[in-house]
């Protein structure tokens, strides 16, 4: 029984819980798309699809960041304002100090990691529950972004290439019929790298292990605190990437933006089948979850549903998506 043929192993994998789970989420996504295509002729058009991809990039990257901490059974409420903080820091380096773009990019990611480190420290060393530590960080970072920027947007007009990060299409350059913006490319790179980290490295193993039974990990002699801090730092660094994406998209760091984004990100993670109680989750699921959210938003807009009803429907769909997942798992 321990000697499975590769075929059997593949079969096991395909029909494993987590795969079925992703298939289901994927089916919901396809279902939504079919529905909206039928409802409006404007939905299934290149421009709109590209728009959806673009709209998913920021939330997708934030959701990937969250996926790590949620698998450890933690939570990060600060991802939205942390993203903004990183965008502001990029602005400080590039616009205020006139440093080259790569410095700004590095700065955003490093400050993201640093802020994540602080959250991780609060959680791992001072034993502050993640919800509170990151709630505090959410406010702290929001305030800091306003303080640092002088409550004004920081524009990147002196660094014209900066907008390419998100807006231009590297793929479209080679395949003009596929004008997929770079933001989406970056989302996929982040997803692939994160997926590798999660599934193939020690860091990934510990991410799952911490979410599964932290005490057991500790009793196994693992330096739990250190790994936790590393995971939160990674989460922060990924938020830094999101900060670059949004800053590049808006060609500016908008210091007041960010709060509320954490809920979208967490919703995407959970719709994608990662459990808030930790121990299980996939990046692919998260990406699908993020797409479900943006297809829904976009589709309702395209159908010109009144905005208050959009809110009602989104609330219901979030619940239904997670319920469908639960039903499927029960079987």
């Amino acid at each position, binding site marked *: *029984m*321990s000697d*499975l043929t590769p075929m059997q192993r593949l079969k096991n994998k395909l029909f494993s819980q987590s795969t079925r789970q992703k298939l289901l989420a994927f089916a919901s996504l396809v279902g939504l798309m079919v529905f909206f295509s039928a409802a409006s002729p404007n939905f299934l058009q290149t421009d709109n699809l590209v728009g959806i991809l673009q709209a998913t990039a920021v939330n997708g990257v934030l959701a990937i960041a969250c996926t790590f901490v949620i698998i450890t059974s933690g939570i990060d409420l600060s991802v939205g304002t942390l993203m903004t903080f990183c965008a502001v820091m990029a602005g400080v380096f590039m616009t205020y100090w006139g440093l080259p773009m790569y410095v700004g990019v590095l700065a955003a990611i490093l400050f993201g990691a640093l802020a994540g480190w602080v959250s991780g420290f609060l959680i791992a060393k001072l034993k502050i529950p993640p919800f509170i530590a990151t709630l505090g960080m959410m406010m702290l970072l929001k305030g800091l972004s306003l303080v640092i920027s002088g409550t004004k947007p920081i524009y990147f007009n002196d660094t014209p290439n900066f907008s390419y990060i998100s807006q231009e299409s590297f793929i479209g350059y080679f395949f003009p019929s596929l004008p997929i913006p770079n933001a989406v490319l970056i989302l996929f790179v982040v997803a692939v790298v994160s997926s*590798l980290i999660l599934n*193939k*490295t*020690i860091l*990934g*193993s*510990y991410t*799952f*292990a911490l*979410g*599964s*039974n932290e*005490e*057991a*990990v*500790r*009793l*196994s*002699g*693992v*330096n739990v605190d250190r790994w936790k801090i590393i995971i939160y730092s990674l989460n922060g660094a990924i938020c830094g990437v999101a900060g670059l994406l949004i800053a590049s998209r808006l060609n500016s760091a908008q210091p007041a933006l960010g709060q509320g984004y954490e809920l979208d990100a967490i919703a995407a993670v959970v719709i994608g089948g990662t459990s808030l109680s930790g*121990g*299980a989750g996939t990046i692919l699921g998260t990406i699908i979850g993020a797409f479900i959210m943006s297809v829904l938003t976009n589709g309702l807009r395209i159908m010109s549903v009144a905005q208050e009803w959009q809110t009602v429907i989104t609330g219901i769909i979030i619940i239904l998506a997670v319920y469908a997942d639960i039903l499927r798992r029960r079987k």
Partner: protein
Amino acid sequence: MADTSPLISITHLSKSFPGVRALNNCQFELAAGEVHALMGENGAGKSTLMKVLAGVYTKDEGEIRIDGQVVNIPTPRAAQALGISIIHQELNLMNHLSAAQNIFIGREPLGRMGLFVDQDKMAADTQKIFDRLHLQLDPRVEVGELTVAKQQMVEIAKALSFNSRVLIMDEPTAALNNAEIDDLFRIIRQLKAHGVGIVYISHKMDELKVISDRVTVMRDGEYIATVPTASTSMDTIIGMMVGRALESNDNPARYTHTDDSHEVMLEVKGLNRGRSIKDVSFSVRKGEILGFAGLMGAGRTEVARAIFGADALDSGEVWVKGQKVAIKAPSDAVKVGIGYLSEDRKRYGLATGMDVQSNILLANLKNFVSMGFWLKQDAIEAVAQKYVTQLGIKTPSIFQLARLLSGGNQQKIVIAKWLLRDCEVLFFDEPTRGIDVGAKSEIYKLLNALAEQGRAIVMISSELPEVLRMSHRIVVMCEGRVTGELSAAEATQEKIMQFATLRETNTATAATTH
């Protein structure tokens, strides 16, 4: 010089928890190549002493020497570095991870570029340990999917994987069947031959003679004595453990249940649930203790949980006192008078974060309210106190958190909860697992008393002597089916084992094991 020093020597060790002095000036010695049993009643401090040695707790006072050198063991990692590994009394596994990942956590082999975990090597190394243990298990299986017994085997495999000089086993066999215990003992003997020192904690007295060289007895956090096993009688050891001579319980006054005219309290017909329950039917009468025997994973727990409404049935009927009942949830079961004591008290039995009284009242609060919602606090405290006294639960007060009690005393709280609930049909799933000899005999008396009062009792147990001693009738299961039924008179260990291994088709077995 170094030759004469024992492998481990602990002296003057003390350790307190808020409100409890768990260890008081304790001593302990372990030689290389020795199996040293550590005995004591529930709450004597055995686990605490070993946790200090394993770096889980830090000592308040005292000295630990390894090879004569004083050492400091602040963390589990430090203990590992000193060559000490431990199998904890409670399972400590990461349920979402594979067996191999559980075993190698913190020591994962790295493959290419030192970046990625070498999953194949990890699985292969795990397989080697499993083979040593004769354990048929896929290293890549998620441990959350395994039965308690297999999880325990994974814990054992993990402890072995360290190749430590000192191996501490805190009740390793509590969840294991005889074949598995034999495998474990075989390994212990191998390790012994290689000079490994082994600390062995168990409440199963018969194991001592088989495996241990010396016995150290503890009582109430204090060291009592160390004696060679071979030249000491069991009664002497038990006497030292309980601090008094124990009335012999080898021939309990068994209530003989011969009268078939007694009312059938519970009858189940054709129960099915997935692969783990297949066409199970049985009945139990008023005043009867029905033993449920079988190997690990035979499906006894599943049957009990399904009848109790904790898990859904695919098909089958449940009759209580001649009435067909529909049980969709445990609350329905309790309404028709069925109670169930889980085999895993920490996970399913106790609200460990709550105090003793709340736990005792958990199944019965409704009878202690006025106007439908107002708690009768005085009555609650009185009744909780009554059961604490009656069952001899060792606790500073009924307001102590259940989490802070020893395993055995926790089990007694769960029993108290069901006694208070006063169900007519009671399932006891491994009621004496992890319970010391003194408490065990009390639980036996209790079961007998309950039967005499006219309750119907189903006792699931993996300890054959216990099943044989207690049951009026024995149902044996194998792979989800009832494979035999024996009356108390005709039952022997051999017959039970025969039924317990009566597989449906011998060829299919290897493939269907999880």
